[in-house]
């Protein structure tokens, strides 16, 4: 007995766990446990410094709060940047896609849109067709000028453009944020609805550029303000036409009506609402971070149980760690130690033998423990 204890003088022990250290500082350990900690600190400057540091502060609660904050701030910080990078990519892709889809949408609109003639001057179908064609041509030329050849703008137009770009920037920020949320939930339904909403937003701009006065089936007028400078001329022309012809274009398609309502909702969302959604996103991010931490902390939890002498709990928690995980060998070591404490020497030996069979950081320790077990059994 004396000889085995003498071994302790030059044996290495593992650094103090957080629980061990804090309980030592708070004087919650038994004398034997204190001796174990002190024997280690004689060898380890890191742990003895940490103990000195903790002994010099009044309460450890500020450290515990800080550690919680550290974990979440670190994950949210990373997610923030990853989210921004991903959303910027998606926005760029969507903008490109939208540019292609825009013309197709215009043709679809003209097919769906039916005209109600209130003015007697426009009775024949020929006139209606001519009007549709003119709108289509206008939108096409506007699109081309917008995407390919930007013409020099007048003073008023440039001012308007500035306003509109501000609006678009705000939209992109919002969509960036929504994209973060989407990434967190990893929900395909949410993703599709988001894409839909975003597309509708862009479609809204396209529609606005065409300055189509939209009237829903229950006769409520939804007039959209033009959002691009390219739409300015067409708007004026159309207003003139509509004033002379007094023609109103009715969208009968249910889908289009819904889209318009969604557009309105998306655009009219107040900063307070945006802030609320932001808060919920942050909450969900924290929750996810906590879940991830919990998974990672199987080892720490197991060690905590082990330090609290709840060996059976320690074994069940540590057994959850799979061989593919980086903490596997450490978990096996603590499972062995727990069996050892429960006097299940055969199981303890099994665990230590696993560690001995492969190259890992706990091989030496396992060998020492096995030696101890064998000497006891002898």
């Amino acid at each position, binding site marked *: 007995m004396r*000889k085995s204890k003498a071994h302790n003088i030059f044996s290495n022990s593992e650094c103090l766990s957080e629980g061990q250290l804090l309980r030592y500082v708070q004087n919650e350990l038994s*004398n034997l446990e*204190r001796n174990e900690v002190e024997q280690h600190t*004689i060898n380890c400057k*890191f742990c003895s410094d940490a103990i000195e540091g903790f002994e010099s502060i009044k309460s450890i609660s*500020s*450290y515990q709060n800080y550690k919680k904050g550290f974990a979440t701030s670190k994950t949210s910080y990373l997610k923030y940047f990853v989210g921004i990078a991903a959303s910027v990519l998606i926005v760029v892709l969507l903008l490109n896609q939208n540019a292609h889809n825009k013309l197709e949408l215009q043709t679809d609109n003209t097919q769906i849109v039916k005209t109600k003639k209130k003015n007697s001057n426009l009775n024949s179908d020929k006139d209606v067709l001519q009007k549709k064609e003119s709108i289509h041509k206008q939108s096409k030329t506007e699109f081309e000028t917008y995407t390919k050849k930007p013409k020099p703008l007048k003073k008023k137009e440039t001012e308007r453009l500035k306003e509109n770009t501000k609006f678009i920037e705000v939209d992109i920020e919002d969509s960036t944020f929504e994209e973060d949320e989407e990434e967190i939930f990893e929900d395909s339904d949410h993703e599709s609805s988001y894409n839909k909403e975003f597309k509708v937003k862009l479609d809204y701009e396209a529609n606005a550029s065409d300055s189509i006065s939209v009237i829903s089936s229950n006769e409520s007028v939804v007039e959209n303000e033009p959002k691009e400078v390219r739409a300015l001329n067409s708007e004026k022309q159309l207003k003139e036409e509509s004033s002379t012809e007094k023609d109103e274009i009715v969208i009968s398609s249910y889908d289009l009506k819904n889209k318009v309502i969604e557009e309105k909702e998306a655009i009219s969302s107040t900063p307070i609402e945006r802030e609320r959604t932001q808060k919920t996103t942050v909450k969900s991010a924290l929750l996810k971070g906590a879940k991830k931490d919990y998974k990672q902390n199987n080892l720490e939890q197991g060690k905590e149980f082990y330090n609290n002498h709840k060996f059976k709990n320690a074994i069940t928690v540590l057994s959850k760690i799979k061989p593919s995980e*980086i903490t596997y060998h450490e978990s096996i070591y603590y499972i062995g130690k727990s069996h050892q404490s429960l006097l299940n020497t055969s199981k303890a030996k099994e665990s230590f033998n696993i560690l001995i069979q492969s190259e890992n950081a706990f091989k030496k320790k396992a060998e020492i423990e096995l030696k101890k077990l064998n000497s006891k059994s002898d």
Partner: protein
Amino acid sequence: MIHHFKNGDSDALGFLYKKHMHLIYGSCIKHLKNEEKSKDAVMEIYEHLTKVLLKHEVEHFKSWLYRVTYNHCMQILRKEKRIAAKDDKYQEDTKSIMDFSMYNHPSIDKEDLLVHLEDCIQELKEQQQNCIQLFYLKELCYNEIVDKTGYALKKVKSYIQNGKRNLSICMSKKNEKV
């Protein structure tokens, strides 16, 4: 875990860091003597690790981490121009790190060296012998040794540390003779 981090698993470093955070935080408090500064230092050291670990090979993570923590604290103190008065004290500390770091100096755990242990204990000075026996063989904590011997706490720590060093020297000498 460092290997995992270098292979692109950013969570591995976070996990590893969290495991040692109490030691880093405590050490920072010891050197900086300020909780808020220590919190900042812990965050800065983490950021530092994310860069440095990608460039350097680290063999003994704990002793290396202690060195990084210590150097960072010294850097902060130097910035605050408080270092001059403490230079002597920290030089002493550095020496003790080299003496006691089990990572820098592999500990003596070979059976052949331990053969002479009992003889060497008998050769120690009385106070050192008492403290070593109570601390290692009877497994009493510092407070109990203080109560039993009447020595001051600092003295007890010093007797144990010096006694251990003398034991190591004695055993090495005897082993060389053999």
